[in-house]
């Protein structure tokens, strides 16, 4: 074959299989792998553990005054994790793909966890909704291919949390993700940017493994009266009255100020600072 013909053949093949690059398949059944995150993700974080979180004083105060009994209110009993935290939940994940029947392009992925809402990830170039549209737990996600990596951008999130001990994430936050597949392993990097409660982007990575025998079952949730309390009561701890905040630092022999978090505590240099007398 002449060089010209080879060149045209490459061009034709590119056109016939548009898009040529970056079409790795994320669909399938994925089981979470916990590794070093197990203590935070399964039993849950300890009260007052803000270590390594780039939070500001406002986030710290909300977490300090957070009362876990809040979750017994009818309004919160069936709340799922938000799109940024759901990866960290201990539940299994199903990803399906939506294919345009004519062009056969992947127009969306859908991610569903045990206790989540459906989360569409649109690849069809649709615009994000206007700022006055409603927010959801899953938010509104668009995505593009960066080679084999899928990069998503999420807006319109409801308020959520970045750690399950009351550290908040606001509804003005946005989320960027990188979905990366290595054979049967899926790594998702989440980058939360929150102008309300974070001073720097908060980056985490989470791993899953393909599980061909998995099927995510239904998980209905019924709201019941868990606590008999007067109407209108919202459980909270008054500022300065939370007696449990120091337990985490004491138990792990950490300087109390380290447990209070802040961007500085994310970086390795902080360990050296802690070791100084």
């Amino acid at each position, binding site marked *: 074959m002449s*060089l*010209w013909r*080879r*060149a045209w053949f*490459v*061009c034709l093949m*590119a*056109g016939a299989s*548009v*898009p*040529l*690059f*970056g079409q790795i398949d994320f669909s399938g059944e994925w089981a979470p792998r916990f590794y070093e995150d197990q203590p935070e993700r399964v039993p849950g974080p300890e009260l007052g553990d803000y270590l390594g979180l780039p939070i*500001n*004083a*406002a*986030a710290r*105060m*909300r977490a300090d*005054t957070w009362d876990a009994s*809040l979750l017994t*209110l009818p*309004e*919160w009993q*069936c*709340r*799922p994790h938000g799109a940024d935290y759901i990866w960290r939940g201990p539940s299994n994940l199903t990803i399906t793909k939506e294919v345009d029947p004519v062009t056969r*392009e992947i127009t969306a992925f859908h991610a569903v966890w045990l*206790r*989540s*809402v459906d989360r569409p990830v649109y*690849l069809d*170039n*649709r*615009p*994000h*909704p*206007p*700022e*006055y*549209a*409603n*927010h*959801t*737990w899953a938010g509104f996600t*668009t995505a*593009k291919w960066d080679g084999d990596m899928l*990069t998503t*951008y999420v807006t319109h999130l*409801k308020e959520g949390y970045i750690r399950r001990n009351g550290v908040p994430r*606001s509804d*003005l936050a946005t989320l960027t993700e990188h979905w990366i597949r290595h054979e049967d392993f899926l790594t998702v990097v989440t980058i939360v940017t929150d*102008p*309300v409660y974070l001073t720097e982007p908060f980056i985490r990575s989470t791993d899953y493994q393909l599980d061909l025998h998995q099927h995510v079952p239904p998980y209905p*949730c019924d709201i019941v009266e868990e606590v008999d309390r007067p*109407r*209108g009561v*919202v459980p*909270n701890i*008054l500022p300065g009255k939370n007696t449990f905040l120091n337990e985490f630092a004491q138990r792990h022999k950490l300087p109390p100020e380290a447990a209070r978090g802040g961007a500085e505590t994310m970086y390795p240099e902080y360990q050296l600072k802690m070791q100084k007398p």
Partner: protein
Amino acid sequence: MKSKLLVFAMAVSLGMAQQSAPERRAERVQPAGEVHILHVRGPIYMLVGAGGNITVSVGQDGVLLVDTGLANMSDKVLAAVRQLQREVAANGVPNLHYGAESLSTARVILDTNAPPKPIRYIINTHVHADHTGGNEKLAKAGRTLTGGNVAGQLADASEGAAIIAQQAVLDRMSAKPATNQPAIPFDALPTETFHSDMKLSAFFNGEGVHIIHMPAAHTDGDSIVYFRGSDVISAGDVFVTTSYPFLDLERGGGINGEIDALNRILDLSIAEFRLEGGTMVIPGHGRLCDSADVAYYRDMVTIIRDRIQDMIKHDMTLEQVKAARPTLDYDPRYGSGERFIEAVYRSLSQAKK
């Protein structure tokens, strides 16, 4: 030459791949000073950008507005309403049910060339000018359907849309204005008032409309409007997403009434699935919401009330309370809490006396 050709081929391939890849961020930029329309559910739409949010029901029975925005935005509001009327006339109403006067949905198919039905009702959620400023112009653009004795005895009974509000709204709008303030035009005043609650006498655009008074909340004349078929609540300023509640103590507002109002909205709301969707709530200002958003807001308002209540219990002065910064954790979201702290403090102190 070979390498040039291969580079060319790869460039073409990359170009094609790029063409099929979506743009990353395409959020719509909203020009300032424009009125935007957001479809909520069924015949219910939300108009944003005219001051306070406006709720519109548009369909075979005509148009109902909850609030009218600022006076200087009336023309743009009216243009948005006309646009909705044209679209409904051409395309029909989503999820159309039987109406009060039109009765049959089948007629809509045949009547697409009919002129749009008029604005018939305006409901004011409270007295403030960013929610009532357009009353005069928008009411004049509408019409009240009358008959029998009313039509015979009141020559102007059918002129303009009816304006419905809680009695305190009329009392305050018709009161002698403060010095250097112009009086509110007569045609902008409510024409029908109620004290506790009111239901429209018949279905409007296929559903019951329930107007419920929320005493001593944002003001003393607040109402929410519940569209029972669409399952949409128009909340007025007892619920906003852009700031702390503005407790207008001079006009009868108060913190405990505000919390009661938020809890009442939650009482009426049922989420569709996992505390999302279902009853939709249009706030007085800000984005469209559902009950979870109201619950977050209720939590915030209640928690701050509890903190200030505790400080008052410990005999702290207003200045000491402000210095203690009881809203510090919510200020980055809702702005400076100083005015809210003062209003809560004064509201609770009044109640204590």
